[in-house]
């Protein structure tokens, strides 16, 4: 029910924040999406979409964190491993 899917903003229409909408591309399928809750969104941004509304921009730098965390865990394990006589 709380499903939200990432897509890329292709074009934007409307000036009023609550009535602003966008054409969002989901891997080749385009849909009309409300931007009421992401007034900062611009063409080219990736947004998370839930029941026809963008609820957040996807932070492209933070998107790598899941892999960075793993690298840090591995580095930690190596350091700890090297302390074992």
């Amino acid at each position: 029910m709380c499903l939200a899917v990432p897509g890329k903003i292709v074009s934007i229409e409307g000036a009023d924040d609550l009535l602003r909408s966008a054409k969002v591309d989901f891997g080749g399928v385009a849909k009309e999406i409300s931007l009421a809750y992401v007034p900062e969104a611009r063409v080219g941004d990736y947004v998370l979409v839930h029941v026809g509304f963008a609820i957040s921009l996807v932070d492209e730098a933070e998107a790598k964190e899941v892999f960075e965390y793993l690298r840090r865990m591995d580095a930690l394990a190596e350091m700890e491993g090297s302390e074992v006589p």
Partner: protein
Amino acid sequence: MKFMNEYRDAAAAGKYAQALRRITTRAWTLMEICGGQTHAIVKFGLDEFLPEQITLVHGPGCPVCVTPIELIEKALATAAVPGVVFCSFGDMLRVPGQSGDLLSVKAGGADIRIVYSPLDALKIAREHPDRQVVFFAVGFETTAPMTALAVHQAAREGIRNFSLLVAHVLVPPAMEAILSAPENRVQAFLAAGHVCTVMGYHEYEPIARKYRVPIVITGFEPLDILQGITMAVRQLEEGRAEVENQYSRAVRREGNAPAQKLIREIFQVVPRKWRGVGEIAQSGLGLRDPYKDYDAELRFGIVQQSLEESPDCISGLILQGVKKPFECPAFTGACTPEHPLGATMVSSEGACAAYYRYRRVGI
């Protein structure tokens, strides 16, 4: 698709499993809140990937599952009123009330339509001023802003033939109810990423402190969930109980301010009964006084007595993480997705439906 497929990488998942094996020294029980996470865990077999000391129990985060039977009955009665167009998300149509489900009312001639967004229901009202259009407003904090905007637009445009049957529920009070129960066995939570996208996570900080429970805001893809579990287990192993954000590509601490603002303008916090769980104080949303004209319960005056659930259904215990679906005697026998006894077997995010779909072999 970008920001989706990369989080299903099998090699990275294997590394997370290794990391978890390295850090886990004793038995821990974690609960994932959201039904979307439950679905991913069962679909991708993530629980079978974990060290055997780690147990995942499935939480109450399926709005379809926790909508009380009395509200389902009100939906059936409202949908059957002549002239009403009853709009709902598709998941709700097969949820059993006591006298049937929305699908059976539709078969009896009622005009029941599946919509993708509350704005679709408002559009139907705009296009059919001679009909009463009712939207069944189900969902957590993720979905409440969309309902709020539909009401806001209806008020702005003076659309009078639109109303809501409001079933919105809030996650933090349910987490507190689980932690306060004597049979609780949850030691850490994976909190629902998209709820936090809207609400942020500051409201989880007092819960983590009060109950000494780690809470990790977690996404929905396999690597998100494995990282969320790793972060939670690390906290447990190190004796910490903090709120951490695994889903930082979508969630900020303060959440989505415009969405919260509109929720507060349209709704107020009210007590709400959760199906299978009972009443939880301050755990639902109801329309504020200036918007009461949009309340379908008042508009149609449908009164509903308290009702009893099927005695064979243990969905309440499943939603609280006390039991798993295969511990239910009715599972796959008397209760199937075609003939569900409880809502957890209906919704694609319900734990019973997920186990039925992916885990029947060998049971």
